[in-house]
């Protein structure tokens, strides 16, 4: 039994428990849709709802047929492949350029810092539909619509703000005297950058890269406007599935994606703790 301060009346205590119940209800609201959806993906019937057999835990009512369907369907295989190719390439571009830029932005000498930061962060704020329309108009002129290159460039631009934010956060906890110490020992700035700065900000770089990857991996609006049939990604395939014929294959894909995001979440949490241990801010 929890100890309450003596000035607490019965109402205070009731309020305390009401708050706790409410908080748990909200958490339930957050998790429930995902938790309900996952078992439905093992439905043996082509429905989106629990059958009698599923409720009575009859093993025959459960099956892996929708997972088998993902494996068998050429379109899903292509979509999975595309999502990883585009996501990794976009994250690579965003992380490389973004890390360099974050180092520049962290310098006290950086001119127009506020303006440039706002500009580099703006892809995060501008609605995707506007970005998609603009890119469709502009990329068409360079024949980039319907190509991998176009989609990768577009997704890289979306990932940039996340890299800037995470790397800047790590750099703000970075002790600049280390840089000076390195220089005073006679190392070149480039060498100091590679041997001192990069190892220290690595957790920030990796989590920025993960953010950029997830951004691309989850993105569908730009794909709708910029990708051709050959560049369909997982979310794009899900989008058309939801619009046209709903069947539990989508639930199976969704379940796999939940597992993937859980894995990413724990990776990031691990990185954050490591970064805290190493003296940077996560």
């Amino acid at each position, binding site marked *: 039994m929890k100890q309450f301060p003596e*000035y607490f009346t019965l109402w205070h205590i009731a309020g305390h428990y009401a*708050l*706790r119940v*409410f*908080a748990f209800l*909200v*958490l339930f*609201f*957050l998790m429930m849709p*995902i938790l*309900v*959806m996952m078992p*439905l993906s093992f439905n043996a019937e082509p*429905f989106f*709802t629990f059958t009698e057999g599923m409720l009575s835990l009859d093993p025959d009512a459960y099956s892996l047929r929708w997972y088998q369907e993902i494996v068998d369907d050429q379109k899903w295989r292509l979509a999975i492949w595309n999502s990883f190719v585009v996501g990794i390439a976009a994250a690579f571009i965003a992380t490389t*350029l*973004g890390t360099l*830029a974050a180092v*520049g*932005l962290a*310098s006290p*000498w*950086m001119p127009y810092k506020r303006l440039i930061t*706002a500009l580099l*962060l*703006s*892809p995060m*704020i*501008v*609605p995707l*539909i*506007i970005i*998609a*329309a*603009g890119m*469709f*108009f*502009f990329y068409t002129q360079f024949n980039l619509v319907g190509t991998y290159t176009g989609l990768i*460039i577009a997704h*890289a*631009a979306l990932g*940039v703000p996340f890299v800037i*934010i995470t790397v800047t*956060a790590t750099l703000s906890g970075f002790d600049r005297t280390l840089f000076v110490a390195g220089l005073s020992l006679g190392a070149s700035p480039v060498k100091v950058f590679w041997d001192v700065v990069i190892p220290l900000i690595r957790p920030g770089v990796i*989590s920025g890269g993960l953010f950029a990857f*997830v951004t691309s991996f*989850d993105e569908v*609006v730009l794909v*709708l406007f910029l990708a051709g049939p050959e560049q369909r990604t*997982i979310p794009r395939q*899900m*989008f058309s599935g*939801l619009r046209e014929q709903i069947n539990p294959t*989508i*639930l199976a894909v*969704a379940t796999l994606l*939940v597992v993937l*995001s859980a894995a990413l*979440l724990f990776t990031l949490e691990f990185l954050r703790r490591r970064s805290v241990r190493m003296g940077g801010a*996560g």
Partner: protein
Amino acid sequence: MTDIAPGLIPADARNAAREVRKRKLQAFLFVTPLLVFVIFAFVAPITTMLYRSIHNPTVANLIPDTLVALGDWSGEEIPDDTVLIQFAADMKRMANDRTSGQLADEINRALPGMSSVVKSTARSLRRVDDTEIATNGAALLIEANDRWADPATWSAVKAAGQAYSTSYYLTSVDLERGPDGNIVQRDTQIYVKLYTKTLRMALIITVLTILLGYPLAFYMAHASDSMANFLMVFVLLPFWTSLLVRTTAWIALLQTNGVVNSTLLAIGITDQPLELLYTQFSTILAMTHILLPFMVLPLYAVMRGIDQSYMRAAMSMGSKPLGAWYKIYLPMSLPGLSAGALLVFIISVGYYITPALVGGTDGQMISNIIAFHMQQSNNWELAAALGSLLLVLILVLYWLFDRFVGTDNIKLG
């Protein structure tokens, strides 16, 4: 630059200034590759869209000669035969290149109903002999459709022929230029209503996320560390889960034979499945769910730093909990609240995917109509104008955010 360090001799000051310039350049060089990339990949596209909203050269490119001939037309009666003959020749050419449809679309936007006139005229002139058109083009044109004898038709052609025009902006606020050049209301009023509805839905979603998110963040912020970390997983897991996945989950829950309806039927609350999916209700519900973590995370970050002893002190001196919360805690948690609220509001105003999938017809927001004009009606200029207005709206909100919260305060995870 000369007053960097007063008291230095000029030569040293110059050296110092040079050093500062060098360091500035160095810092800037680090940023340059990304800046160039973002300008190409992101800024130029947005600029193109802004430009597109006022620039549409389609008609000017299709019938340049007719437009030149129309240049000194008075606008009062039917243009000269030279204009009509030139236009008839242009129509024949377009019918054979199969570009008359583009002209029909454009003129139809200036004067609704012209689409069929242009297309049927093109069809009837398609196989007429060139010399016949050169001599008798004007009569053939009017014979094909007598609306070519109406000056209003030619005003529409002339208006559509202008490469630069603000008409798309007028349309996007439900206005148009009347025949006498005055700006009047359009017959159908949709876009202003849609902007209002979008803002109203975004506001409802923001309020709902506050109502749900604030108590949750409060509870978590003042729970023990291990409890808070454990509960945080249940906020972060949905946050990290794909948007499409969460929308899919809501479709599974809300559809006619879905989990919610079967449960309600089974426990006898209703005897008819409720119509939950494809409504404004489902859009707001799903978006509240999707955006709730954006409210909880900044609130939690701020509340975690609030010392509860002030509240306790007030309460131990007899203040009611709600009173103490209102006077002491709320002002201290306000930075988190405003960050979360503005973030949720900005994101919801531009939302596209969830309304598109669960919104039906009455859950559609402004982004959906932009997508509609991009993909279905192919009225790209109108889409650009609507998008530009939305962009202005977002930038104003972003500016407010920067002013009151500061973009430095954006934290992830």
